[in-house]
């Protein structure tokens, strides 16, 4: 892989993805600096989810570059596992947890650890692992649910559990897809706080529709439209951008 000289943690350049002639991403380019938090907004079908798929290796771009960690890794040549091991974690739009496992085991599986077959075979539970799981259970408020099977949690609880799994994974870059869907206002605020907290030592990309939540985060906003960047800036700059108003907010 060719090293790329960039200071960016994540560097996307002219990414194009098409399905049967339909361009989901069209020459999409943007960069995320280390320790940055970025909110991505845009109407449905703007390519937000496809963009996440490209970064996490689920979809290979037809053309364009995706580099991670100051250009040292070409993500378009790696698969999901390798990318996850590099330190990119993802929360899905629809919460996906392991339904048959307990809440605790879900976190245990996510916990940063050796992921090799050998390691999991000879694995033993340690108190430091237990402590970390306890901490996370506290943070995501599922402490008294720890031995329940995840399948029996409510929608909101699953959202939190998935965020908890992201925390346990301890990635450098978090991709968070619609984290507050189905949450109360208070929960939404707490989630914003939590993400800000995480952002202290990690880089975060949040995709969200909820403008109040985006405003609450108070970070740089990228608006996507038809697979490319339409506008970038603060929430105020973006929401007053003429083209954004035209296509996104309506006349």
């Amino acid at each position: 892989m060719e090293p790329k000289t960039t200071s960016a943690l994540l560097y996307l350049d002219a990414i194009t993805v098409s399905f049967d002639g339909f361009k989901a991403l069209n020459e999409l380019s943007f960069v995320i600096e280390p320790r940055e938090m970025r909110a991505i907004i845009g109407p449905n079908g703007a390519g937000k989810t496809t963009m996440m798929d490209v970064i996490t290796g689920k979809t290979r771009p037809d053309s364009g570059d995706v580099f991670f960690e100051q250009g040292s890794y070409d993500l378009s040549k790696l698969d999901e596992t390798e990318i996850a091991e590099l330190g990119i974690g993802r929360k899905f739009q629809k919460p996906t947890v392991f339904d048959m496992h307990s809440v605790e085991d879900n976190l245990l599986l996510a916990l940063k650890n050796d992921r090799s077959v050998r390691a999991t075979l000879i694995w033993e539970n340690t108190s430091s692992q237990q402590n970390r799981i306890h901490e996370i259970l506290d943070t995501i408020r599922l402490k008294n649910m720890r031995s329940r099977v995840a399948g029996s949690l409510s929608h909101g609880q699953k959202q939190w559990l998935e965020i908890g799994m992201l925390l346990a994974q301890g990635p450098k870059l978090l991709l968070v897809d619609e984290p507050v869907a189905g949450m109360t206002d208070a929960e939404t605020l707490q989630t914003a706080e939590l993400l800000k907290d995480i952002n202290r030592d990690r880089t975060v990309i949040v995709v969200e529709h909820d403008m109040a939540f985006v405003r609450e985060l108070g970070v740089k906003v990228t608006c996507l439209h038809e697979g490319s960047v339409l506008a970038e800036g603060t929430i105020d700059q973006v929401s007053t951008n003429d083209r954004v108003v035209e296509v996104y907010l309506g006349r």
Partner: protein
Amino acid sequence: MSAFPLTRLLDNASTIFLALLAAFAIAIPVLNLLVPAGSGLHVSTYLVALFGKYICYAMLALSIDLIWGYAGILSLGHGAFFALGGYAMGMYLMRQIGARGVYANPILPDFMVFLNWQELPLYWYGFNHFAYAALMIVLVPGLVAFVFGWFAFRSRVTGVYLSIITQAMTYALMLGFFRNNFGFGGNNGLTDFKDILGFNVQAEGTRNALLVVSCLALALSFLICRTIVTSKFGKVLVAIRDAEARTRFLGYRVEAYKLFVFTLSACMAGVAGALYVPQVGIINPGEFAPANSIEAVIWVAVGGRGTLTGAVLGAFVVNYAKTFFTSGWLAPYWLFVLGGLFVAVTLLLPRGIVGTFEWWHERRAEKKITALPASAPHAAE
């Protein structure tokens, strides 16, 4: 937390199962060898061989349960690994015949003499040594599974597609082993065995010893499976079964996990096949028939997939039923029964016998808890 090995390995059901197996392994030889033939308690040598066969089937069921019940890989070609192990054992037994064959050739098995072969093919070398054969019993199925799995899992062939190509695999092997020029006895397979490790395979003592060895192998396989499913590895397997993509995004190399467990399961099936062959006295390409593999899957389904004891129980129940039906005037109806079993279990008893029992047990326990007033209602949407 560090009281890991035994308590984690042996829950109640496992302990009961191992105790029963041990009792079985002791009781049958005693009742066969020490109780006189006239006594009502006497177990005939025919039954000893029959039970030995069941134990081998149970091991095959266990190996299928490990990948299907826990990792969600439904192999419709596991009989192939069973047969490969069987052939490896058969080759050893053939070489043990030596000059006692019909054509009295000390090197070449009868069928090769018959086909006018001049010398032993290279791949038959070494099978006169038991240790080598034992190695091959594990290695050959393992290697085939590894190569097959490496291709299949790497390209993420899953679900029914995987099932269909495993079926194609065993079918292709069957066609191959039917050919005389493959050097495995063609249509007739390998048979006419005389000795195993110097003991006459027909002798009562040997038969009992084989039964005990089979029980030991089953117990060992059971413990290996328990170790795996109770480890973190086992949790990862279940995670893969329920949400493969998610597991991958967590950074687990899903194909490596599947490959490991698939290969291990194939080795286990191979050992089962190897123990099966001296007890039934023949191995032929019919063992590769896709129908055999599918039948083995139903044992697991009947017993309860995802429960190791269920797999063993299923193998016993279905095969006992088969013996019962096919050895009398009911014989024409056996296929109706077997077919009905497939339909009934999937429709009415999807968790299988043990699974249903466990579920019912848990439900009762749960009810006791929910009977307490505390629990607040939560809307599920």
